[in-house]
């Protein structure tokens, strides 16, 4: 492929914007951007509404074949080799982190994707949540700076050694 490196990163930027938009539209269509829809799903002892399970089910149904393909072929159209995140390392950091996330998610009914999409509702609530989210992320990165990065959004990022 004779695409220049500049052209390629431009293409990645454009397609990323498109996929971000599709992701956001999915959050809107599924009503994940309404915190009450999320807490209704989590309220097993009360107004339990199983809709969120259909959101995850629909997403996994579409994404799973792509991951199966990526595990076999390990090559993306624009960014070269796909190096998928670790699937097996289970430690206290994983479980404690997920538990803290669960408390915050249950209190607010907001996880990071819908929180960002809610920014354009121009409500102070969304702004406060995202500012605190950013602070929590940066605090954690600084507090764990001596340790390898916990997170890889880039499938081709170098793998932490632990």
């Amino acid at each position, binding site marked *: 492929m004779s695409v220049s490196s500049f052209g390629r990163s431009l293409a990645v930027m454009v397609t990323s914007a498109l996929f971000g938009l599709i*992701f956001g539209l999915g959050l809107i*269509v599924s009503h994940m951007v309404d915190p009450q829809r999320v807490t209704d799903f989590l309220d097993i002892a009360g107004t339990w509404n199983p809709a969120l399970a259909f959101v995850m089910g629909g997403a996994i149904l579409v994404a799973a074949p792509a991951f199966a393909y990526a595990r076999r072929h390990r090559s993306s159209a624009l960014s070269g080799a796909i190096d998928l995140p670790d699937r097996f390392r289970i430690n206290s950091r994983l479980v404690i982190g997920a538990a803290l*996330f*669960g408390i915050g998610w249950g209190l607010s009914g907001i996880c990071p994707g819908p929180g960002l999409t809610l920014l354009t509702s121009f409500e102070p609530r969304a702004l406060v949540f995202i500012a605190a989210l950013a602070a929590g992320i940066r605090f954690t990165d600084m507090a764990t700076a001596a340790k390898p990065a916990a997170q890889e959004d880039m499938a081709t990022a170098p793998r932490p050694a632990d």
Partner: protein
Amino acid sequence: MEIFATAAAGGALIGLAAAGMLLVNGSIAGISGIFGNALAGQPGLWRWTFLAGLIAAPLVAPLAKIEVPAPHHQAGLVTLAIAGLLVGIGTRLSGGCTSGHGVCGLSNLSRRSLVATGTFMLVAALTVYAVRHLHLPVGF
């Protein structure tokens, strides 16, 4: 039943975005990871364009005749600040959120993501129980 159909349709769009980010750009569509690594200044302007698309979605939705639901909040500003901090710390420690572990990780048959997703679902359900049935105050 319509609520389940739109839930699944919205989910399918999320899955499509995750599949596209993986196969076209070689990236995991985990929102806490993309947001956090963008804040950390990692090279790659694609993170910012992805986030711009995500944030712009409610402005674009009406053009596609998609109704944007009004958000109903149970939490007040102080609770939202605490919740945001916990979500930030928690997703960074565990390496993913609902999208990174719940959608991408489970789609990738990751045992690690299954443990994370089970944990945050269970703890979130317990937290909602405390709010709604034990009347933990969150309105401030």
